[in-house]
Each structure stands twice: as structure tokens, then as C-alpha cells.
């Protein structure tokens, strides 16, 4: 056996194959850096970790455009007193790959802060590296209000902020029977754990709950299960490309007619790609491109100039606000004092594209919009809810 392996290893074609594969894998795994500033301001390097491969890669373009627009804006306005440059790393699809990416950014490249655009389990892995170096981390994911650390602020909504308003709204319209369906990981489960008692307290009932693993390609039997439970509302909490697959299959299935869909993880860009399959999906979010106002128009123009071909969405908005928030905190705390930057992040209150954006208890505090998708994938705003304090369940050690 070892002789055979040696013979295989000694062939030129083997070397060529290995070299080609490693070259490609290397190109895929490496990120890229914006060029260093040439002006008189000092440089502040921000590590950006996001999924450029795997199921979450569907959010990558919007996130990158938001970050680029944010960097352009803070540098043009000299917000931080330093020139922001970014250093991008691919988070891959699991905890090991994101640990490698964050270790590279923090230990090798020496970034001053990390902007994380990854789901909860990957955020925990990345923050383990960042926390030990006292590096500020600005995250998209809030977990479900249970990922907490002294160096971490989360800009995404926690479940009570995002989910409860849509529950109240639809129950108020007589949609009382709900089915909860999600991907098999912590965020959907924690979201349901918060939504279910609230639904029951408002007079609703849960007619079923089930989960599928991440990476499911055929949801036909799940749709059958949901339809057979006869809900008024199907609360679908599946992430990334899986969400696209589920929504396509749901929309194509005639049995689902008459069941309202709620999907709080569906970005507008993805909804546009779904087209008619997105028709009728309810969502709640801190941002929709259809929010009217001059500042939102400016934001949409900025992310388009930054290379976003699809509609501006929550992912572009959050990534933009990550940079804006960090720049304001660096201005307050100074670019060499991480502890002061972290403290300043916790006291953030600023004007954003759709109104006031603030950080309370290290989590976001902002209005929530309820909206329904049309046949073109665009969302029409139905209601704006006031900001709600984040309900957290942080472990004691954090």
C-alpha cells in the first residue's frame, strides 16, 4: 500500500494536480486588502470576516458593498481621525475555517478591530480569538441575544426586537395558528423559544414545530407537514441559500395557498432573485430599501456606487453601519486604545440611513419595519415599530 502511494506521489501528474488544487484553494481561501492610505492621516486597519463560500455567501456581495460604502464615507468625512482600510478574510462555512480567518487577521495582519458578518456559531469561534487580544468585534449576528462578550457589540436585531412585532401584527389580523419551521441550529431554536410564549400570551397557538439540517435540498416533506397542520402562518427561519431553496419550493406548491409566510432572514437582494416566488412573504427588519427619506436615498446611491448590483438590503445596511459605528467609536476612544473604543461602541447613538441608530447593552436599538414582498421581490412597508430594549440571555461568564 505504501509503495502504491509512493508511486502515485512520485508522478509528475500528481504534483500538477496537487499544485493546481492548492493554488485554487489558496486563491479561494485568501481575502484581499484595500490599499494603504497615502495621506497624512494614520491608518486604521479593520478586519472583515464574512462567508465568501458556503450557504452564507449569498449575503457576501451586499455586505462587501456596505462595508466599501461605509469606508468611503468615513474616510471622505474624516470621521475617525484616521484612514480606514479593510483586510477581508473568507470565513468559510464552519467554526474551524473562521478561527483560521480571524487568527490570520488578528495575529498575523494585526488588524485593530474586526467586523464579523457570520452566523452565531462562527461568531463565537472568531470572538474567542479576538477576545483574548482585546480586539473590538462588531457583529451582524446577535445569536439570539445570548452571544455576549466584553469586546463584542451586535448590530443585528435580537429575537424579541425582530420577531415579536410581526407576531403582534399578524395575530392582530386574526392569524392565530402558527407553525414554526427552522434550520437546525441555535438561532432559530432560540427565536422560537422567545416567540412561542409571546404568541400564546397574545391569544395565538402553535400548531407545529420542526427543523431540518443546514444544507437541505428538498423541503417537499416539510411543506407537507406544515400544510397538514393547517396553520394560518408559517414562520420559516432558514438561512442563506437554503432559504432560497425553501421559498422557491414553497411558492411552487399549490397546497400552501392561503398560508401566510413570515421570513425574517430573507434579504431584499435575495427576495429580488426569488421574484414571483417571494410574493406575499412577510418580513421584519431594521432596514428596507423602500423606507422613504433623503438619507436612505443617499445610502442606496452609495452602496450602488460601491458595486452592489441588486437592491440595497439589511445586509448592506448593517455592514455600512458597522463601519460608521466603529469610526465614531475610534474618534471617541482613540485609535490605539482598544478598551476605550469598546467602551465608546457601547454608547453609540447616531443618525443612520433610516433614522437614529443606537447601541444598548451592547446590542442594537432601532426601529423595526414590518413589510410584505410583492411579485417583483420588492417590499412594501406595512408598519414601523418603536425600538424595543433587547431581551438578553447572556451566560454569566460573559
Amino acid at each position, binding site marked *: 500500500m505504501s509503495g502504491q502511494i509512493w508511486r502515485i506521489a512520485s508522478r509528475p501528474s500528481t504534483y500538477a*494536480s496537487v499544485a493546481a488544487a492548492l493554488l485554487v484553494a489558496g486563491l479561494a481561501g485568501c481575502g484581499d486588502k484595500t490599499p494603504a492610505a497615502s495621506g497624512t492621516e494614520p491608518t486604521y486597519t479593520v478586519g472583515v470576516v464574512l462567508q465568501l463560500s458556503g450557504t452564507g455567501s449569498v449575503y457576501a456581495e451586499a455586505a462587501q458593498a456596505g462595508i466599501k460604502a461605509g469606508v468611503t464615507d468615513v474616510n471622505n468625512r474624516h470621521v475617525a481621525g484616521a484612514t480606514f482600510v479593510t483586510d477581508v478574510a473568507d470565513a468559510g462555512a464552519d467554526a474551524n475555517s473562521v478561527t483560521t480567518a480571524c487568527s490570520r487577521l488578528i495575529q498575523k495582519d494585526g488588524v485593530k478591530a474586526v467586523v464579523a458578518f457570520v452566523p452565531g456559531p462562527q461568531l463565537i469561534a472568531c470572538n474567542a480569538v479576538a477576545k483574548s487580544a482585546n480586539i473590538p468585534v462588531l457583529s451582524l449576528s446577535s445569536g439570539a441575544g445570548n452571544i455576549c462578550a466584553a469586546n463584542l457589540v451586535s448590530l443585528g436585531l435580537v429575537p424579541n426586537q425582530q420577531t415579536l412585532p410581526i407576531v403582534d401584527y399578524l395575530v392582530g389580523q386574526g392569524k392565530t395558528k402558527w407553525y414554526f419551521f427552522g434550520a*437546525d441550529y441555535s438561532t432559530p431554536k432560540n427565536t422560537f423559544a422567545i416567540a412561542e410564549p409571546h404568541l400564546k400570551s397574545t391569544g395565538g397557538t402553535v400548531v407545529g414545530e420542526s427543523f*431540518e439540517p443546514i444544507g437541505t435540498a428538498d423541503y*417537499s*416533506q416539510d411543506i407537507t407537514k406544515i400544510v397538514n397542520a393547517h396553520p394560518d402562518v408559517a414562520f420559516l427561519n432558514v438561512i442563506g441559500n437554503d432559504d432560497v431553496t425553501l421559498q422557491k419550493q414553497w411558492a411552487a406548491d*399549490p397546497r400552501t395557498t392561503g398560508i401566510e409566510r413570515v421570513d425574517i432572514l430573507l434579504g431584499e437582494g435575495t427576495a429580488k432573485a426569488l421574484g414571483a416566488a417571494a410574493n406575499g412573504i412577510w418580513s421584519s427588519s431594521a432596514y428596507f430599501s423602500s423606507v422613504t427619506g433623503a438619507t436612505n436615498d443617499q445610502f442606496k446611491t452609495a452602496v450602488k456606487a460601491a458595486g452592489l448590483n441588486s437592491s440595497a438590503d439589511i445586509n448592506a445596511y448593517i455592514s455600512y453601519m458597522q463601519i460608521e459605528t466603529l469610526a465614531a467609536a475610534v474618534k471617541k476612544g482613540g485609535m490605539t486604545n482598544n478598551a476605550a473604543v469598546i467602551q465608546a461602541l457601547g454608547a453609540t447613538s447616531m443618525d443612520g440611513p433610516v433614522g437614529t441608530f443606537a447601541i444598548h447593552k451592547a446590542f442594537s436599538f432601532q426601529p423595526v419595519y414590518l413589510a410584505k414582498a410583492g411579485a417583483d421581490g420588492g417590499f412594501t412597508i406595512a408598519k414601523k415599530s418603536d425600538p424595543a430594549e433587547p431581551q438578553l440571555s447572556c451566560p454569566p461568564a460573559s
Partner: protein
Amino acid sequence: MQLALDVVSAIGILVIVVLGLAVVLGVLDVINLAHTGFMAVGVYTAVTATEHGWSFWAAVVAAMVGSGMAGLVVEALVVRRLYARPLETILATWGISLVIIQALTLGYGHNNQALVAPLTGAANVLGTPYPAYRLVVIAIAAALVAALALLVRYTRVGLTVRMVQSNENLARAVGIRVSLIRATTFVVGCAMAGLGGALLGPTQAINPNYAVSLVATAFLAVILAGRRLSGVVAACVILGSVQILFGRWANPVYSSTVVIGIAVVLMRIRPEGLTWRRA
């Protein structure tokens, strides 16, 4: 009835994914890890064609041609040099799949693409409404199996391929151009991948990592199948049924694990494949 349709639909999808893989493995002994890449080439070709005003079915044909041409290039540049070296073909086709993913990312970006099904709405099957397009996919899967069976069993081409499959040296000795048969088989396998990619496009997320979540079960099926078409069908029926029935009656979170477990047990019992017959 609903459950039966879900099971048949899952089997049909699996068959469409597996056939191209099975053709390449069965005749060439090549485990084509670039199969999902060729499916992605197919679906992106179909997306591009429909964006240029082609009908869905014309786009499906274009997908087959596009993937077949990509397969021709890959066979000529890489795979041809690696026949009879299974470990190296695995590594090489994995590298090719990465190249395809990166090329599609550069060309189209990470965002999802749209491919609208030619049929919307429901059809009634014995009084049970079911998505019409899924029924079409099931019918196409059945037609592909039947066509392939007829081709292999009753045509001169099929006879030639079977001869190359069973004894290359003998085939060469009687004047068969083995290299041409190999290249053609690889191209046909890739074209079938493209066909599957385009057909499943309206039901799946279309991005550069297209079909990755479909292919794990497909690889199990093709390894379980052995060298016969009947084995491929049997493997798809077993794995597709288990996937759906376990998900329905137990916990879908564990259905993939159960599918793998059953495949391992069957491979232990019948290591040469489901339809292998003792000599």
C-alpha cells in the same frame, strides 16, 4: 398519496443528479467530484439563455451543450491523462470543481440567480394536487432511465460501451477506439450533469456552490449502485425513500445520518453493488 408523491419526487431528483455520475463512474472508473461544478455550468448556461429571451426548454438544451463542451475541454486537458488512476482523478476533479466555482463567482458574483419554471400551478394526481413542475421532473427522470437502458441494451453504441467497460484491451484489439469512447462517455456524463442542473434550477438556490447539498446522497447512491443501471435506480429508490420517510415519521434532522448508515450497511452486505451477481 401526498407522501407517495413526495417519495417519488425525491427519487426522481436523485436519479437526475446521479445518472451523469453513474455513467462516468461505471464506464470510466472516474469518481467525478466536479459533477456539481458541471451542474452549475448547466444551470448558469440556462439562466444566461433565458435572460437572452430563450424559452426554458431551449435553455435546458443549451445547458446540456454548455456542460458537455466544458466536459470536453476538461477531459482533453486533465482527465484523459489520469484514467486508471482513481486517486488522482478524485484530486483533479475536486480541483476542477473549485476552478468552476471561482470562475462562476468571478463571472456572476455570489448572488442568487433566477430561473423560472415553465409550469406553475398544480396538477391533480388521483385527486391530490401536486406542483406540476415536480411531476414533469419525475417524468423526465423516468424517461432518462428508460432511454439509457434502451441505449445500453439494444444499440451498437451500448454494446461498444459495455465492451470497453468489461475489457478495454479486448475492445482495442477488435478495433474499437477506446479513447474516443472514453471521451464521449465523459462528455455525455457532463452533459447529463448540465441537464440535471438546469432541470432542478427552478427548485434550488442558484449560486456558484450550486447543488452541493444534493450531491452527498448522490455519491452514496452511485457507490451503492455498482455497475448496472438497475443498481442506480435501486439505490436511488432506497436512499430517496429513506430520506423522505424517516423525515416524515421521525426527525428530519437525523434522516441524512440514517441514509448514510443504511448505505454503509448495504455496502457491507453487497460490496460490489446492489445488482452484482456472484459468478
